[in-house]
């Protein structure tokens, strides 16, 4: 079956800087926004842009991720011939075959792509929170006659040192990459969204695969090689919210962004819906005496206490006399009575015992609570309030 463009979604990231959140979970599978997992934003972009087939490349701790994605039903990507396929590393006749880098992951699936005999390949990752119409970018790519188009975001000049920066001519042709430059010449940061002409990309992938000391990585190897060969590489300006939730702090921030009236549209934009598995729990019950303000709450929550500036995933209970503030509570967590939580992230199914107080100051990194460390906290600070300020 011939398709104009095949999408390859890199979902193998380890997400080291997310600490406990990615202990047994691939980064794209980390819960987000009271209902979603991070990868839902990218998969919904694929559906809303009508960009399929989609090959999803997984590697690290993929169990939950595979369960979540399944055959792509929530995103209508369960299609007969051009839907979603999970591409994990697999055994061949002689031993294993792990992906050794982002480019290597594509190289090992050249057959999958060639099945569709495409003109273009869209490469994206499942790590970011944003809405984007890839189809528009593809139209732009076709018009410009580029070999590669890289989507870029204008970032504040003072933050350029945190990003991969693209230096371009006025017509957005790229002549230089700078990884986290101290003195940036441009504020156009790469979003990790690429469209390649497949013929060109394939050539570079095969070349790169034969190099022994290559990391087989797009940013490190493939794109620089193309630039060195003077390939036509263009930047494509993206406007809108885009966030790499790569650290605990940015993960927490992205949630607080959801209380901003404008950014609330990230979840409730009817023109660009974000899809996920639906909760099977009954509506939330707000009991007599509860106070709920500036918060996002999902099905099955039972609230007796106070919830402020917090995001509660499904099935969370909040006991009487308890205050949950500036926090993110993952599915099924049970917060006992007379608890005080501020700026914490409570993991799935964790029970916070009655009387616990954990208040984290704005200058400290939010604390991730698991069943293990909540016990340590309890032992360490038995009877005392924990303030990390």
């Amino acid at each position, binding site marked *: 079956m011939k398709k104009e463009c095949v999408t390859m979604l890199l979902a193998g990231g380890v997400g080291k800087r997310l600490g406990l959140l990615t202990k047994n979970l691939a980064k794209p599978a980390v819960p987000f*926004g*009271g*209902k979603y997992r991070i990868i839902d934003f990218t998969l919904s972009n694929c559906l809303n842009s009508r960009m399929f087939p989609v090959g999803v490349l997984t590697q690290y701790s993929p169990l939950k991720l595979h369960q979540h994605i399944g055959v792509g*039903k*929530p995103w209508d990507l369960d299609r007969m011939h051009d839907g979603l396929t999970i591409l994990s590393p697999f055994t061949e006749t002689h031993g294993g075959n792990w992906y050794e880098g982002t480019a290597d992951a594509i190289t090992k699936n050249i057959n999958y792509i060639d099945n569709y005999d495409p003109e273009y390949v869209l490469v994206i990752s499942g790590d970011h929170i944003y809405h984007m119409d890839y189809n528009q970018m593809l139209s732009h790519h076709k018009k410009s006659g580029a070999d590669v188009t890289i989507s870029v975001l204008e970032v504040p000049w003072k933050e350029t040192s945190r990003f991969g920066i693209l230096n371009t001519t006025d017509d957005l042709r790229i002549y230089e990459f700078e990884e986290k430059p101290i003195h940036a010449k441009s504020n156009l940061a790469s979003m990790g969204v690429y469209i390649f002409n497949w013929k060109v990309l394939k050539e570079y992938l095969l070349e790169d695969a034969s190099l022994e000391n290559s990391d087989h990585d797009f940013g490190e190897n493939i794109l620089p090689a193309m630039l060195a060969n003077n390939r036509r590489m263009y930047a494509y300006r993206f406007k809108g919210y885009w966030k790499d939730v790569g650290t605990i702090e940015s993960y927490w921030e992205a949630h607080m962004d959801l209380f901003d009236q404008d950014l*609330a549209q990230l*979840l*409730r934009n009817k023109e660009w*819906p*974000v*899809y*996920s598995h*639906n*909760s*099977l*729990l*009954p*509506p*939330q*019950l*707000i*009991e*007599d*005496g*509860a*106070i*709920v*303000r*500036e*918060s*996002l*709450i*999902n*099905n*099955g929550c*039972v609230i007796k206490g106070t*919830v402020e500036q917090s*995001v*509660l*995933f499904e099935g969370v209970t909040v006991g009487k006399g308890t205050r949950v503030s500036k926090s993110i509570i993952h599915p099924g967590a049970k917060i006992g009575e007379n608890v005080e939580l501020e700026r914490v992230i409570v993991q799935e199914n964790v029970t916070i015992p009655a009387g616990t107080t954990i208040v984290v100051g704005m200058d400290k990194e939010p604390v991730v609570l698991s069943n293990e460390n909540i016990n340590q906290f309890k032992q360490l600070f038995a009877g005392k309030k924990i303030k990390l300020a």
Partner: protein
Amino acid sequence: MKTMMGLINLGQEHDYLNELTYFRTGASVPFAGRYRLIDFTLSNMTRSNIYEVAIFAGNKYRSLMDHLGTGADWDLDKRHGGLFILPPDWNDPTDISKGDLRYFHNNFDYFERGKSEYVLISGSQFITSTVYDDMFQFHLDRDADVTLLTTSYPDPLPEHRSCIKVKMDEKSWVTCLCNEQENQPVFSGVYLLSKQLLLELVKECIAHHKENLFKDGIMANLERLKIQAYQYDGYSSVVNSIESYYRHNMALLEASSYQELFFSGNNVLTKVNNQPPTNYHDTAKVSKSLIATGCEIDGEVTNSILFHNVKVAQGATVKNSIIMQHCQIEEGVHLENVILDKNVTVTKNQALKGTKEQPFVVAKRRTI
């Protein structure tokens, strides 16, 4: 392995919910913040190792078809078995059947094709969350012809008046089925029999120009058939009037009832609607309420049920009310003892008030 198929017989249910059933069959009336009445029966069936379910669709079945879709949300989008919506589409000129028997007559091939030897029949007005496996085992163990699911209510309510009461002997063989006003166990409308017996009774009823399978086929044959009563003690309610509909919705605002209905067993399955979590804004004031996802709340909500995607503006108050999906309550509105069907807009500063016995019901898509 002996198996059951499910049959939800709406062919004999009436449109008893006034404004709420102007455009839809009773089974698809919204309930408890995110469900339709039929979801309870249907979920009970699909959890009970029942892999094929037929629905006699009655009239006004379009909203029902829309709600059920492919059946995927109940795990019934299967190639073998699955969900069969059987609307009244009669084309047989020789057909002499009447009442709900017409559905059987015109769908005989469906029953013949099915693999299950037993049929569990239910209506949509008995609301509970359970599985029927124990009842099935009971039916087999007792070697009964028919087994009726019965339950008892310590304090009889008005809606139980029209229910059939069941008298039985000490071995739970049914001795009398009638509408007496005594406080007897109530027949839930759920019963179980072999497919073979079912089809025999249907043929017999049609041949004798009868109109109602249960009344003419089962009740009238009480002497001849060995009928067992299977007593069920879980949380349940009967919804067969606006008043009972309102009351049993409101009952779920009690944490104990909410827990009993929704958290004592499996989940009640319903149509997926992909709403984001509900957004409580700065000025929201909500208490003792059941709130679905996708709502945006700036106002005050007390002792009420909001379905998905309801907006309550700042300065509005909603009290003792049921507000269905996609309603908009604008600034300064006051609602009390009101049922708004879906897609109703109440414009600025309007006030609507009913009583608990007679809630004010607004039909769908109105702007007030």
